[in-house]
């Protein structure tokens, strides 16, 4: 007979993991500051390109200068909140075999990693999202939301973007159960991820066929959707619904993959 489960105890670790994830990144303040320099340099360059485009025509696919500038600086800020690059923790632990310890712990590995990632993202909102956006808003024409509700919707959309991003990164890393060396896979995502998610150029500027294809993928949920919500283009609720769908789907697939992958695990020595 299974012992009765006290749900309070089962769920207790996760809020703590969120806090731990936050504190872990808050420790490296100098690194966060240095990273900001890169964000701002690239923000200036990207803003220059988009401004040059809008010098040809005042509105391109619904973006005027203020919307394009807001797009650039939100993108630079969200980059390290949503996190596209540099998450190789799980694959490293699969390769070294440390994942065995993680699987043996009295927690749900996927939920624990998601909790830690949300904590990381929470710190990134303060350290990596607000400063570039403040810089952009002070230095350039900026499009603030007109409806107060947009702030809440943007918050929800960003949260969902982090979960979708986590889902994608989890799957890429979990491929290590089969491939062992996932550098090629993660490297490939690193180079195409920015384009297909609408980080480097607004997806609305893409040809119709490319937009139609991307609409069937989770990628726009990462950057384009939160930014679209912030600059109030169209009805936000279908966008949030799509993010919610992809967040749920990716987490479910990730869970199945982890289950299959951990069966392949052979612990040497023992």
């Amino acid at each position, binding site marked *: 007979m299974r012992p009765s489960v006290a749900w309070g105890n089962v769920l207790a670790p996760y809020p703590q993991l969120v806090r731990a994830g936050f504190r872990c990144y808050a420790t490296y303040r*100098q*690194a966060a500051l*240095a*990273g900001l*320099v*890169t964000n701002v*340099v*690239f923000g*200036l*360059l990207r803003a*220059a*390109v988009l*401004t*040059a*485009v809008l*010098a*040809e*025509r005042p509105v*391109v*696919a619904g973006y005027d200068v203020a919307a394009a500038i807001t797009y650039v600086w939100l993108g630079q800020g969200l980059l390290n909140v949503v996190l596209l690059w540099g998450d190789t923790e799980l694959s490293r632990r699969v390769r070294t075999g440390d994942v065995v310890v993680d699987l043996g712990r009295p927690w749900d590995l996927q939920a624990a990693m998601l909790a830690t990632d949300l904590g990381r993202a929470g710190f990134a909102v303060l350290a990596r999202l607000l400063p570039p956006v403040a810089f952009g808003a002070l230095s350039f024409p900026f499009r603030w939301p007109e409806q107060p509700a947009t702030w809440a919707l943007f918050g929800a959309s960003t949260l969902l973007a982090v979960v979708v991003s986590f889902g994608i990164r989890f799957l890429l890393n979990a491929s290590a159960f089969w491939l062992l*060396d996932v*550098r*090629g896979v993660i*490297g*490939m995502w*690193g*180079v*195409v991820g*920015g*384009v297909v998610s609408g980080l*480097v*150029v607004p997806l609305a*500027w*893409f*040809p119709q066929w490319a937009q139609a294809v991307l609409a069937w993928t989770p990628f726009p949920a990462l950057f384009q959707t939160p930014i679209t919500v912030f600059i109030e283009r169209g009805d936000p609720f279908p966008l949030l619904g799509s993010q919610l769908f992809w967040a749920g789907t990716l987490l479910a697939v990730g869970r199945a993959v982890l289950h299959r992958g951990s069966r392949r695990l052979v612990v040497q020595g023992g």
Partner: protein
Amino acid sequence: MAEVRRGIYPRIVASRIRGQLAYPVSFALDVLAQFIGQCVELVVIVVVFTQVTSLGGFDQREVVLMYGLAATAFGLADLAVGQINELPEYIRSGELDVLLLRPLGALPQLLSADVSLKRLGRVAAGLAVLGWSLAGAGITWTPVRVLLAVTAPAVGAVILGAIWVAANTVSFWLVDGREVASSVTYGSNFATSYPITIYGPWLRRILCFAVPGAFVAYFPALALLGRADPLGLPSALQWSSPLVALVAVAGAALVWRTGVRHYQGTGS
């Protein structure tokens, strides 16, 4: 002794190259990722030109020519001196002390520590784009322009390499200069891929005179296209990239020497 020294770098480099070819599939994937990675910015240019017909006063072929020159130069520079980005790690871990103790120059040792052949993927992407745009940009070919087209990527690579060495030298003063260095490295790749007419006056001045990125692709491209500078800068600048490269190398050497003299180790 001199005899030994002459032979040592080719042997070091050859051993690094053999090491990378030991895992051919992984190597091929890496090369492909670099190739695609270099093409990402090209996608941006193509997408932008589906919306407008000119950017900063240049049409698509002309911007792609600048991109091709910049990408090839970046690939070559990354292949030759990309290893300089590891300098912050060498300083932090104290490994630099080992290099300084050996009877060889610290910079050549650092640069030859890992010649990453996968970066050939970037060079290949750059050359493909460059070849395509040179063929179609309607250039009136003269012997001087042929010489310029052949040498411009290498000269651009020298300029970029000098900028990176100088920028990475900040690591001698900052404990973790990695981010600053990478923003210069990848920022220079981005900045040189577009006509400088798109940047504001300050960014433009910096690119022309302080960090000479405009001489990597913009000015050579103007010379190849036979266009006057829309900003009204003298046409002599269009042909002066090799000279700028020499000055940049001298400047970078000076900055590097100052940095090494200043170096005190991290004390751990």
